């Protein structure tokens, strides 16, 4: 039984919500059950933002994630806030471009992704969150890159079609951080 409880957290504007919705859409396309729950309110407007994503091959009972099996920390306050809550044996993905410290727990797996450097090299800062997503997919191995890319093809059409390849490369560069 697969039951993934994920928290994606960071500053507003870092693409936190869209990492979550992309995961949820991908999982749904793969026939899994999903829920996506955002923090809402003033947090949406420039402060910290997070979303809870639950992905399972069984019925999803509660959409609220209190003890994540996986945490994607896009900034330091998010790591500080949620690191203690991660389940033992869980995964923490750290956006090492702006998080200045390492994961302190030794009972979780930590992966560091220089998302801003990757985005900078690719010439588009907006794909930093896709690098984080790529690392997540590679580290957890239940969502497939093919499904994500299929979805990107549906989102980016016409004049935006060239963005599919850019995003695909960003995903792979993120995945490389897991493989290294």
């Amino acid at each position, binding site marked *: 039984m697969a039951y993934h409880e994920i928290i994606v957290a960071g500053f507003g504007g870092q693409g936190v919500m869209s990492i979550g919705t992309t995961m*949820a859409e991908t999982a749904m396309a793969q026939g899994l059950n999903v829920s996506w729950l955002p923090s809402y*309110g003033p947090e949406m407007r420039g402060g910290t933002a997070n979303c809870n994503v639950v992905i399972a091959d069984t019925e999803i*009972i*509660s959409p*609220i994630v*209190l003890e994540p099996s996986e945490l994607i920390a896009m900034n330091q306050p998010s790591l500080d806030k949620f690191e203690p809550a991660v389940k033992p044996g869980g995964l923490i993905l750290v956006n090492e471009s702006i998080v200045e410290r390492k994961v302190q727990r030794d009972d979780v797996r930590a992966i560091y992704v220089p998302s801003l450097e990757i985005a900078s090299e690719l010439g588009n800062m907006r794909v930093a969150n896709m690098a984080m997503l790529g690392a997540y997919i590679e580290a957890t191995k239940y969502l497939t890159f093919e499904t994500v890319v299929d979805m990107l093809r549906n989102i980016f059409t016409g004049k935006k079609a060239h963005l599919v390849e850019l995003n695909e490369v960003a995903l792979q560069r993120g995945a490389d951080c897991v493989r290294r």
Partner: protein
Amino acid sequence: MAKELWKGNEAIAEAAIRAGCRCYFGYPITPQSEIPEYMSLHMPKAGGVFLQSESEIAAINMVYGASGAGARVMTSSSSPGVSLKQEGISYMCGAELPGVIVNVMRGGPGLGTIQPAQGDYFQATRGGGNGDYRLIVFAPANIQEVVDLMQEAFELADQYRMPVMMLLDGMIGQMMEPIEWKKPPVSPDDLPAKPWATTGTKEGRAPNIINSLFIDPEACNVHNQRLEEKYRRVIENEQRYETNDTDGAEVIFVAYGTPARLARAAAGLLEKEGIKAGVFRPVTVWPYPYEALHEVAIQDSVKVVVTVEMSTGQMVDDVRIGVNGVKPVSFIGQAGGVIPTPREVANAALKALGR
């Protein structure tokens, strides 16, 4: 049919349009503003009316006028805004006008907080406006159920000529889940005629009058008794509920909306500790499924009934009515946007069991 990922607030708006609703009046308030936002774009596309009103009071009175003119109509708001609508809701009940009111509840009292809560239960089920009246109140717990119930909400409103409330908490409004559109869309052209509506006499019939004033006490009493007879029919025919693992359970959790999901998670925790727990979930909180709850509670296996709410305890009154003293009833809840955790809920059950 393929599943689609929908946000609760947008799903409820789309479900209304698919239910043949072509008229929406409302005022923005968090956490339900995605409903008017969605309506402002999609209602005109469907050939319908969207209007952002100057207040919640105006919105509900626009609903009154439109409903009296025969339209399938809705409004939506969140707790403080729904307080403002109470006047119009009372008048709609008095004038026997159908319509759907969505309340995406947040914490109160007063301005409270924008985070999810369930503090409007009394207001929804006991009537926040003046006079003897009732609303049919649906309390869905997931987005599929939200969209499934929306068409029924409009149908029951028309059938009984009374407002129906969709009582959600902010969590259900804000979250996304995959859904299927199970029922085919309803065309407004196929809806049953409303011969009572004020659409102009064409000088071919006596004037229709939409009214809640019965100045003569005898007439007003007759009107009230007639409404009461209607509400009795609703009680007989429209109770909805769901049970999960209640057969032979030691602990029965009773919860509606999001807390019902937390209660199921808590039941899972108790099961690991060797305690069989089930969840009784009212889907209509008015009419309340008292007898069904009683049947569950009266089982020999049941030791305690634990009510779970995102409030300081409102529905628990109905649980006590339903259980009617056959088993002890206890309560666990948090308010103001704080959500009880499954562990807290499980511990409340353990405490009630004396462990």
